[in-house]
């Protein structure tokens, strides 16, 4: 089983709140650590991908409303 440094539930949250919350918490994750995110806003998928690109993180998984991000960017 994969170990997540953080597991965040943003279901019911509207854009851009999930990205704001994730950005607030990402500093708690060690380099190369994984974050699991649940988010059901229709903008969550594209915005997580764009946020990862802009911040230098890696979107490891995007499966429906479940996402996994690897912390690679500046803390």
């Amino acid at each position, binding site marked *: 089983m994969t170990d997540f440094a953080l597991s965040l539930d943003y279901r019911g949250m*509207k854009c851009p709140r999930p990205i*704001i919350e994730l950005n607030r918490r990402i500093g708690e994750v060690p380099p190369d650590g994984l974050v699991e995110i649940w988010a059901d806003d*229709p*903008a969550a998928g*594209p*915005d997580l*991908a*764009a946020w990862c690109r*802009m911040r230098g993180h890696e979107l490891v998984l995007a499966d429906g409303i479940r996402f996994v991000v690897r912390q690679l960017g500046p803390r």
Partner: protein
Amino acid sequence: MLPDAQQAWQAGQQAGWGDPLRLHRAGRLAAQALDRAREVVAGAVGARPDEVVFTASGAHSSYAAVAGLARGRRRTGSRIVTTAVDHSSVLGAAAASGDHYAVGVDRHGRVDLDQWVNALAVGGTALATIQVANHEVGTLQPYAEAIAAGEQAGVPVVLDATAALGRVDLSHSTGWSVLTGWAGAFGGPASVGLLVIRRGARWRAPYPIDDYQDHRWPGVPDVPAIWAGAVALDNWLRFGRAVGERQHQLVDRLRAGILERVPEVDVAGDPVHRVPHLLTFSALYVDGETLTSELDRAGFAVASGSACSASSEHPSHVLAAMGALTHGNVRIGLTRTTTARQVDGFLAVLPPIVAGIRERLQAR
């Protein structure tokens, strides 16, 4: 709307034009105006005047183009290829008229030509659609190459010229089967759509027709509105080059200024190969609704592709397909009278507005 087009519309309404199919004087005058309007459009896109049809909107033109070719080609198959960034009216028409397949785009929104060629080679493909330029981010598509691939594969291509008409020279464009446009995009009435159907195209009207417009679009045409649209287009064909050069520079200035002054911003679209007047960007940790309304209060009317600000619950499919940020999105369309001073004014108000929203959302 352009002042010239407004005047033409009023003059047309006062001219006493009648039903263009009737032989009385009022009808003949209307028919002449309609003929002249067809000539303007035909000249703009390298077509014959008798290939030009006026519909009721850009969305109507999209539907007529896609559903009409699907109908004419139904013996070949029901597969319809679009790009992922086509206008929603084109995507909707494709989904309603056959088995829709969308070809992906790169970071700038430019269609992947290899994927396009492969998609057209699949048997049973009735038609394909591509834009000259994207309506949200302005990126020019490789439409000439895409059309040539269509000819090679024997697949008729719908060319959506909505964002490009008057701004990109299409007077020598060839190879497309149906071309679409909308007068509202070039300073004409929103109630006039353009539909140019090549003679010989396998297009069949996908709705009941009558004698008007050579059995291609039903109902008495609104000649004063059409006339105003033709005047607007004619205006662009005459003066568009100079306006376009100025707008291109102003958008360069906007783009550079936004990147310099607003941290964590994603500017979308091709910086060089684009229509002159459009710029789209997204600011992280900002909601599009607040951003557009605060810009409006500061005197700047802008659009947004963010889900939280648009009429839809879903974010812009164009931004999503490009991998661009969809929240905090702003779409700027310059008018022909936009000045460098206005651009600088925008660049002055934007950074504190974005910073203020981020602070209120506690995004730091």
